[in-house]
């Protein structure tokens, strides 16, 4: 198997799994690398093995697709065509003359370095949730909607008895129904958009009958659990001292402003909140891949503009699990053909290409409907913490913008330290950009994960060795 070309796939979500299975089936040796203990990514996040879940599918949708992916991966691993590295956090992918080196840190403590060399890489690192600040959002008991889902699927844990699910976007539906099924009293699902606007976009809907059925299933589940649905509403404030005790929600007017006098208080110990998703693009950026807005830019074959680098799934744009699967499949087949030195035939992935187009249109339509309330920044008081890591308030950011003339995220960061903490701005950047009145642009982070200095030093040594080897090779040619 060693003479087969070698593809490193980073991310074992729907996109990375589909890509791995497709590439391995077409004669490529694949190393699938993921930070989680089990394959699945966010959508197919698996419960920790030691919890021995007898019916894990109770927490999932499209379980049969997952079984196919899982069985495919296992077959390729058994046949020695694929290696699946779990618990490997990739912090850098480095491109040399004729190969790539993937640098990872092992395990939750992330100190032991591991390097994987490959002929090509496929980035399938997915995305993470965006949350815009409001007073009280740092209270324990307030968490991201996806985080609530991840804790539930991954460790069968829920934080409280009564939850409110709030924000905007399609992810709120599975989160609210998941919590309700798991025995949490979901007091309300608070959606700031008006999903009825989506129903009027009949063209995008008609092209996706499966998605309509999915939506109807969630609606039925919400009804069964008596979850109150408040649309065109938003959370104004989370209340509590040491932990969340209640939230105030209020109606929005057509301009996205809170309607005075409509506030109502809902007692709860959990608030799961999200305002959409952002793609994970750090690895692509350090490789020098061009971005299109916030997304990694790819061609019809899912190739980035850097030779030997493919990207698939939500790293190339937020669009859900089914779109990630289609993109992963195409990327895997394209990479396999190109690594064998042949021109791929797009007819071999016509079905996937068709669903990619349709789902792309569907999510573009969703995007125009599910947007955070236009005047969300009005809710950010001067005392509201905006950067959670460095505890930078709305007042400090406004002072940097209005008083000191900062006009972009970078300058605000330098003046206030917003975005300089542990998470490197992943949580506060959309809010800082919004408050500074500028577009959210991709921020350049040197590494995808914090790296111990010792590891960096050793990686430097390994690189110079690899380079002198490559030079020696080139000279002997």
């Amino acid at each position: 198997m060693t003479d087969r070309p070698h593809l490193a796939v980073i991310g074992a979500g729907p996109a990375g799994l589909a890509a791995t299975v497709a590439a391995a089936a077409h004669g490529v040796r694949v190393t699938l690398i993921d930070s989680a203990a089990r394959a699945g990514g966010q959508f197919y996040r698996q419960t920790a093995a030691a919890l021995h879940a007898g019916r894990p599918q109770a927490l999932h949708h499209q379980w049969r697709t997952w079984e196919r992916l899982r069985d495919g991966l296992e077959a390729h691993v058994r046949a020695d065509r694929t290696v699946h590295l779990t618990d490997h956090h990739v912090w850098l992918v480095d491109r040399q003359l004729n190969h790539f080196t993937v640098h990872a840190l092992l395990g939750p403590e992330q100190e032991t370095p591991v390097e994987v060399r490959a002929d090509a890489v496929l980035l399938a690192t997915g995305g993470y949730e965006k949350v815009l600040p409001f007073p009280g959002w740092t209270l324990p008991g307030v968490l991201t909607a996806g985080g609530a889902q991840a804790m539930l699927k991954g460790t069968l844990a829920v934080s409280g008895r009564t939850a409110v699910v709030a924000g905007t976007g399609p992810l709120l539906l599975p989160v609210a129904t998941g919590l309700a099924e798991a025995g949490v009293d979901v007091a309300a699902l608070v959606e700031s958009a008006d999903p009825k606007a989506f129903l009027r976009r009949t063209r995008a809907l008609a092209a996706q009958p499966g998605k309509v059925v999915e939506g109807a299933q969630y609606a039925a589940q919400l009804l069964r659990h008596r979850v109150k649905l408040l649309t065109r509403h938003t959370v104004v404030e989370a209340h509590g001292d040491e932990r969340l005790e209640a939230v105030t929600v209020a109606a929005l007017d057509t301009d996205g402003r809170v309607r005075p006098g409509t506030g109502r208080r809902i007692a709860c110990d959990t608030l799961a909140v999200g305002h959409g998703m952002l793609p994970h693009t750090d690895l692509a950026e350090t490789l020098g891949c061009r971005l299109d807005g916030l997304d990694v830019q790819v061609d019809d074959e899912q190739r980035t503009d850097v030779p030997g680098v493919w990207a698939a799934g939500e790293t190339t744009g937020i669009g859900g699990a089914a779109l990630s699967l289609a993109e992963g499949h195409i990327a895997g087949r394209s990479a396999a053909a190109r690594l064998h030195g042949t021109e791929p035939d797009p007819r071999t992935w016509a079905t996937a290409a068709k669903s990619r187009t349709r789902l792309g249109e569907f999510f573009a339509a969703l995007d125009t409907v599910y947007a955070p309330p236009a005047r969300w920044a009005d809710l950010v008081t001067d005392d509201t913490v905006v950067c959670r890591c460095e505890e930078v308030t709305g007042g400090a950011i406004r002072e940097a913008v209005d008083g000191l003339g900062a006009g972009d995220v970078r300058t605000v960061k330098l003046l206030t330290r917003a975005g300089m903490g542990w998470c490197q701005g992943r949580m506060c950047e959309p809010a800082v950009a919004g408050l500074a009145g500028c577009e959210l642009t991709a921020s350049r982070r040197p590494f995808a994960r914090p790296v111990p200095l010792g590891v960096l030093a050793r990686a430097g040594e390994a690189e110079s060795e690899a380079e002198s080897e490559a030079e020696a090779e080139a000279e002997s040619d």
Partner: protein
Amino acid sequence: MSSPLDLAEAHPGPAFTVTLDGREIEALPGQTVAAALWAAGVTSWRTTRGEGRPRGVFCGIGICYDCLVTVNARPNQRACLVPLHPGDAIRTQEGTGHDD
């Protein structure tokens, strides 16, 4: 009332004991620090450097670093990622965690 464990028909191995600031709490095999603390009714386990405000899980997937905690004398571990083992000593963390 149903629970997530019932819903997924989970049959974990026997619970084991870990400590939180010296107090014994039970954990199940496969649980992360965050999951075990939630199950024990604890939602915050650190205070911030600046204002000393309580924090716990926020993103749930290792991105936000809000859930930092000290495990077996190692500060700044992400509770949402670190799995527990029998006898582990969890300590709530103040500030940078390096004053412990």
